[in-house]
């Protein structure tokens, strides 16, 4: 192969874990990617992806408490998500476990940065009622395993599974699995 870089498009499935998994369904996303070819058994690249998350409930039950002296009031409220979009750029470095002419198995890891775009409303009776439209930055790390299959000289399809953990500003630490089908064309 004489080219050293390639552009691709990918379709993903994001499977949220933990608290994010309580809130949102597993979701299909998409994106574009850029990566070098394996040289000396390693390569680097970056994937940009976008996910439009879908809440698992119309209204989530949220609990607030007001403690005054010996008395406690438990506020039983609701939170409704109108929008929850996630954008990621995964920067990765892969090591070829098996590097053949027709296919490669590899393991890798990297960092991701990104942003969320959120619109929600939360109501806690007698405590607060607020809504939020905005976003927050995201940063984290991930490990991944993958398989690439070469079709001819210029076309590669591949599957990757990533386990990611990331900190989302003002929201907490979240994790997910991302399964990615990628089609890449060598320019």
């Amino acid at each position, binding site marked *: 192969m004489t080219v050293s870089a390639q552009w691709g498009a990918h379709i993903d499935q994001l499977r949220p874990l933990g608290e994010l998994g309580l809130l949102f369904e597993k979701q299909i996303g998409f994106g574009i990617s850029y990566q070098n070819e394996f040289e000396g058994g390693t390569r680097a690249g970056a994937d940009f992806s976008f996910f439009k998350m879908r809440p698992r409930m119309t209204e989530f039950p*949220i609990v607030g408490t007001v403690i005054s002296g010996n008395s406690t009031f438990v506020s039983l409220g609701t939170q409704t998500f109108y929008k929850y979009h996630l954008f990621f750029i995964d920067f990765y470095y892969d090591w070829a476990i098996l590097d053949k002419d027709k296919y490669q198995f590899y393991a890798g890891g990297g960092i991701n940065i990104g942003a969320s775009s959120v619109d929600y409303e939360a109501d806690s009776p007698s405590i607060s009622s607020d809504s939020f439209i905005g976003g927050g930055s995201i940063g984290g790390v991930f490990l991944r395993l993958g398989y690439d299959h070469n079709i001819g000289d210029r076309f590669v399809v591949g599957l990757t599974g990533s386990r990611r953990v990331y900190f989302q500003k003002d929201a907490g630490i979240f994790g997910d699995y991302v399964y990615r089908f990628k089609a890449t064309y060598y320019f």
Partner: protein
Amino acid sequence: MKKCFYLFFTALALSFCGCGKPLDNVDDYFPEVKIVSYTPEVDGSVTIVAEISDQGASDLEYVGMCLSESRTPTSLDDQKLAQLSNGRFSVNYSYFTNDDGSSIDLNSDDTYKVRAFATNGHGYAWSAVFEFGPWTVPSVEAPCAPTINTINYGSGTFSAFTSGPSTVSSTYDYTMNSSQADVKFAFGGPLETGVFTTASTSGFLNAHQVYVQLTIFNIYFVLPGSLVYVNEISENQFEVTICDASTSLGSGSDFTARFIANG
């Protein structure tokens, strides 16, 4: 070496992330609670029992109930928290709060709506709305059995003539007149089967409070906290009994009486 450090750091971060696989059914994160019974009490209140059938995906934090006269109760409607014991908890309601903020005693002729709730680390769940009433207040048994229409205090026993009710004031008043002593029972509401508690004044009595005043040369009263037992023995006819109640007259002057009167 750098790569190894990077991989180790990443693996460490992943292992520290509390990122368990999500539950297939989102409702499984939250507790399940249901109301299993209600019991009318002799003091006019009602005790409601609820059961936790599933605590959800994390530890329970609060359990309790909310009550309303007319609408589906929310957390703002007479919320009472409870303690869980063997998967169950109970709440006793003797009044509800009206929309204007005033407290109104439960009336055994009316119906009320109550919901139980339970919270855990993921959220909360309500029980189905439980509607109760009208109900019959259970009959009560006084711990003493004095002769009807007699007054006993100190070492004396006196026959009495009973009259009432008089509603000249805001209370339901019954009077026992004898040669040695007169006694007035001022009930906060009309007579009904149940246990009433004595109060230190006849003002602002609730439906299950009663002020008992003795006139023996001077005016004395039964100290607060004594019990007056009322049973409906026939249609609108009630037997009222008070047993060994302490009075403001001092020690050795315990007071016992029984009379029958119309409601």
